[in-house]
């Protein structure tokens, strides 16, 4: 990722190279995979912050929260896939 950032910022040619590289189907799959992991991690992290604030700390709340995290993440991951392809 840092390599692609470096390439994309190095010069106009580097930017074109990075663009072409990210257009490949394997690169798209990797980008989607990374985005998926990051989105899920972020949604689960937001849930941690919500629970730090004292919301949903019961057993029932915990179960419900975990379901919400999976549902929201799934929607975001599908949207990310639509965006990547």
């Amino acid at each position, binding site marked *: 990722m*840092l390599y692609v*950032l*470096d390439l*994309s*910022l*190095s*010069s*106009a040619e580097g*930017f*074109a190279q990075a663009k072409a590289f990210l257009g490949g189907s394997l690169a798209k799959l990797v980008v989607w995979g990374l985005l998926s992991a*990051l989105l899920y991690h*972020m949604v689960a*992290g*937001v849930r*941690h*912050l919500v629970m*730090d604030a004292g919301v949903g700390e019961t057993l029932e709340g915990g179960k419900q929260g975990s379901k919400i995290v999976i549902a929201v993440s799934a929607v975001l991951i599908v949207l990310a896939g639509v*965006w990547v392809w």
Partner: protein
Amino acid sequence: MVTNVTNFSRSGLFDWMAQRVSAVILAAYFLFLLGYLVTHSGLTFADWHGLFAQTSMRVFSLLALVSLGAHAWVGMWTISTDYLTPMAFGKAATALRFLFQAVCGIAMFAFFVWGVQILWSV
């Protein structure tokens, strides 16, 4: 006896806070970049280069880079002290854990230096 010398700050409370503050910064940076890329579908080199050439973007990027190092360290430290234990690995646990943490620390430092180099060459 508590022999924790490898945590981020000698204080679990500070680590707890650093993890959350860095998390919010990283979320803001990620959402900003994602939003920028989604709204600039025909992105040109001039736009992209111009974005990262701004001082405000340098500050934001460097803040995110520092946060990434801190966040990853707290996370990896927590995982290593939870799972690389004498209960799971016997006498080798301390050496194994230290090695794992050393690799993580060097990786984070390397990413930080590399990131600074990229940002400052723009």
